[in-house]
């Protein structure tokens, strides 16, 4: 480097006429948008952890049957309200590997409850990749191999068992299949409606806008839960669990769209005045194309973030409905259905483990909130 007396900087490197002057100094400076988003998102530690956790949870769903030691409706008449069992590794200072103690139950006729006594002399090793109840891997491959199960003569109730002697841990895994997908289906319905109504209101304006706007105001001013209750009460009781599951998800989504529609509408009102929209219209693009190709991609990031933030409401909604007995019904297993059992003070006091399904609910809802916050902060990488 040379520095002439007038303090001008001159690079010593030989002049190359072929060099592309508009190329950025560093390769990573014209990174695609998703990379910028990822870089920003990575700094949001809580959001990142939540995202990874949720990804793993959803990936786990098809394999719930494999991970769970029991099938969801497998009853064990000798083990009603069995308290949670710990998995030990060391017995008398020697490493044995994961093992449990066999327990024997006795009816406590004074307090009218079951008492379980662990036989701490005999460690019983858990079996790995063992045969148990049959389930469908990925939903269609019949299988009876489980990751781990109880040895002959013992039980492995990690989170205890419920009033019918069903394993709470296994049921939580199975329950996740419904409880977690309810949110996804619900948000899909809500999005389809919200984007449709929001965009036609914002794009066309005038009378359409007025009508949709009033509908949004009315729906937003009504309390959701009583309407959810009323709609789910209308679901015929002779429908199968799958049909009920879908209709409940749709009901949850149907009342959720006004908020989104409002955001879409106000965004459209300003965007439709842009030159590129007018250009597209002049070239003969139909409204549907203008909306889909030119307007929606403009704020897809906003949409993704608000979707992530709306899913928890759906999950909590399903839980509340099932809890009140108007949502999913047994034999379907969801976290709300499980909590239905823990509805009274007696189970909280005597069998607190029946309320364990609340933990995954809280964790998942928190994770969605953190992930949504992280996405909202990072999805617009061009903003300061």
């Amino acid at each position, binding site marked *: 480097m040379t520095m002439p007396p007038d303090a001008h900087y001159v690079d010593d490197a030989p002049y190359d006429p072929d060099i592309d002057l508009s190329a950025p100094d560093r390769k990573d400076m014209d990174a695609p948008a998703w990379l910028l988003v990822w870089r920003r998102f990575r700094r949001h530690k809580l959001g990142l952890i939540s995202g990874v956790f949720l990804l793993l949870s959803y990936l786990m769903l098809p394999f719930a049957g494999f991970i769970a030691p029991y099938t969801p409706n497998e009853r064990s008449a000798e083990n009603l309200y069995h308290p949670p069992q710990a998995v030990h590794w060391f017995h008398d200072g020697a490493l044995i590997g994961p093992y449990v103690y066999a327990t024997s139950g006795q009816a406590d006729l004074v307090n009218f409850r079951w008492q379980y006594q662990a036989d701490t002399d005999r460690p019983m090793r858990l079996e790995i990749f063992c045969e148990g109840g049959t389930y469908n891997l990925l939903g269609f491959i019949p299988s009876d191999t489980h990751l781990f199960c109880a040895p002959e003569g013992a039980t492995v109730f990690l989170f205890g068992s419920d009033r019918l002697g069903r394993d709470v841990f296994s049921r939580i895994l199975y329950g996740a299949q419904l409880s977690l997908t309810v949110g996804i289906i619900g948000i899909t319905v809500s999005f389809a409606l919200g984007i449709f109504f929001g965009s036609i209101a914002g794009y066309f304006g005038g009378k359409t806008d007025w009508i949709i706007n*009033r509908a949004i*105001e*009315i729906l*937003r*001013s*009504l*309390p*959701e*839960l*009583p*309407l959810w*209750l*009323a*709609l789910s*009460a*209308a679901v*015929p009781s002779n429908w199968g669990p799958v049909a009920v599951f879908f209709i409940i998800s749709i009901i949850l989504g149907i009342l959720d769209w006004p908020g989104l529609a409002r955001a879409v509408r106000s965004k459209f009102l300003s965007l439709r005045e842009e030159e590129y929209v007018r250009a597209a219209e002049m070239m003969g693009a139909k409204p549907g194309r203008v909306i889909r190709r030119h307007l929606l991609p403009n704020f897809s990031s906003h949409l993704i973030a608000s979707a992530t933030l709306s899913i*928890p409401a759906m999950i*909590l909604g399903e*839980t*509340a409905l099932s*809890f*009140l*007995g*108007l949502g999913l019904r047994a034999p379907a297993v969801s976290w709300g259905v499980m*909590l239905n059992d*823990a*509805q009274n*003070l007696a189970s*909280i*006091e005597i069998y607190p483990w029946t*309320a364990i399904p*609340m933990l995954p*609910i*809280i964790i998942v*809802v*928190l994770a969605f*909130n*953190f992930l949504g916050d992280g996405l909202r902060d990072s999805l617009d990488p061009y903003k300061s």
Partner: protein
Amino acid sequence: MMFLKYAGYRLLTMLLTLGVVSILVFAIINLPPGDYLSNQIAELRATGQAEGVAKAEFLRTEYALDRPLWMQYLIWIGAAPGPQGFSGMLQGDFGWSFEFDQPVSEIVGDALWLTVLVNLAAVLFVYVVALPLGVLAAAKSETWVDYSAAFIGYLGLATPNFLLALMLFYYGNKYMGLPIGGLMAPEFEGEPMSPAKVQSILIHLIVPTFVIGTSGAAAMMQRLRANMLDELSKPYVETAKAKGMAPARLMAKYPLRMAFNPFVADIGNLLPAMVSGSVLVSVVLGLQTIGPALLAALKSQDQFLAGFVLMFVALLTLIGTMISDLLLVLLDPRIRYGAREG
């Protein structure tokens, strides 16, 4: 004068909205096939009890359930003559509950006031908790005060209401001797108001208020914090600081006032969620509000009762939203009347 005109306009839109809501509610409660009586008739026929059928048939004509739906709707709201002439919602006749075999007004009676009371208490709770916490979190942003407030807030948002209710009831009773269940001690039920009864109700209100209010308070607190932070980064705050104004006085004098508007406006979003929460929590805790009545009515397809409760719940939120709109105008003269249309 301008204000009265605006209030009148708001009242009118509210009544119109209520009209649309009544159609919606009527449609929803008539979604399930058949009605309470036709189901009963089918059941009686199936079990071969012929004498009950005649009574149910009589009741069906008596309550106009055999007419076409649009006619039923008009009779229900009182815009068309039913078998007893005009007697619908507009005339103050809320119909008959088949499940409880009593007029709807008698079943809900006290529950209406208790519902209003519970929701009012919860709204107050939200404001009392969210205001200081939100301001504090903004003033001490990015310190442990802020983080712990945010953490509690998130937890409040994420915990299902009904579970919180059960646990608070259990632990509140165990460690603080708070009463379990109900909204008053059993001996006061049906009694006229007395200081002892009021006290009993107040003590019973603690847990429900807390439960219903928590998630609302958490959301409100976060929003207040964000608004405050926006205000705090403005130049006038800098100026005041440079002039040596005491932090507490500075906070209260300007930014807080500015951040207060959305705080009041938010009640429109807050109330529906609150009423939802109170229905759920009432069912779990056995409060004598209209929540349990609604659930029972929906399950047994007791349509007049369900319809009335849904209407009442909607009315409650609509009135609340209207009051918040009017308050907002009084509070901030800069908000132009009717400017929301633009």
